[in-house]
């Protein structure tokens, strides 16, 4: 999921550069383009259950639940909704920055 392999082959270029010459001892015969991507978010792991936000939280892994989505606070910190709803019952502040917890948005 995180990497993509792209193989480019071009018959034309292979013909032109098939043999090394004196001033070009190395020839590029084939190249693979590699792309990596990452989520543009401040934290990609839920600081409460320590599982990646793109995966289900620790509780939902053992007890499947369709409602395991991600929640962002006004402070821009993100957690699993399940984990955060448990914590705010006890203390309505972000565990990372101690600001009052206000939901900014939710999503997957």
């Amino acid at each position: 999921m995180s990497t993509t392999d792209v193989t480019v082959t071009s018959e034309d270029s292979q013909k032109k550069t098939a043999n090394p010459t004196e001033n070009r001892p190395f020839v590029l015969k084939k190249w693979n383009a590699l792309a990596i991507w990452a989520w543009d978010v401040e934290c990609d792991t839920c600081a409460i259950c320590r599982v990646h936000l793109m995966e289900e939280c620790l509780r939902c892994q053992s007890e499947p639940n369709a409602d395991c989505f991600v929640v962002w606070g006004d402070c821009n910190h993100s957690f699993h909704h399940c984990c955060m709803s448990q914590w705010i019952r006890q203390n309505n502040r972000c565990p990372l920055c101690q600001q009052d917890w206000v939901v900014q948005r939710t999503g997957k």
Partner: protein
Amino acid sequence: MFNLQRRINGNDEDRKYLETRVAIREKLLAQELKDLESNLRNQRQCKLTLPSTSQLHEMELIVTPQEGIYKGGVFKFKISVPPEYNNVPPNVKCMTKVWHPNINEDGSICLSILRQNSLDAFGWRPTRNLTEVVHGLTSLFTDLIDFDDALNIQAAQMWNQNRDQFKSRARDYINRYC
């Protein structure tokens, strides 16, 4: 009441809840203990042991301060991690009698990160972990010793009135109980 009726019908929600919480705790602990073990390697201030490998949530910590008033002491702590971890902090008790402003003679400990309900930023929160708890307990004998926010008030008073008397009492306790 409703739950009682359901329990009679064989559907025990409390038990199911507890089983889920315990499963979460075990997973969190498995990771944390691994980190903790590597963090505690190559240092002489403390040693963590698990009396039973099937009970990862019951731990013993032995703190051996290398400097300060309590140098030479061997202080045993019992750390027990409740099923609701990490929404709640571990329970820690000091098993060695000690003359300390933040540990009373029953073994109760006053350490900010062990406080479950705290309005400031120093209390427990799920982003904390066992490594922080162990470091906190170790530092309680050196940097974190706090005479202004005392649990053993007599100990703190003694420190304010006569430091030599305090030190000799602390030493006396070490010789007797460690």
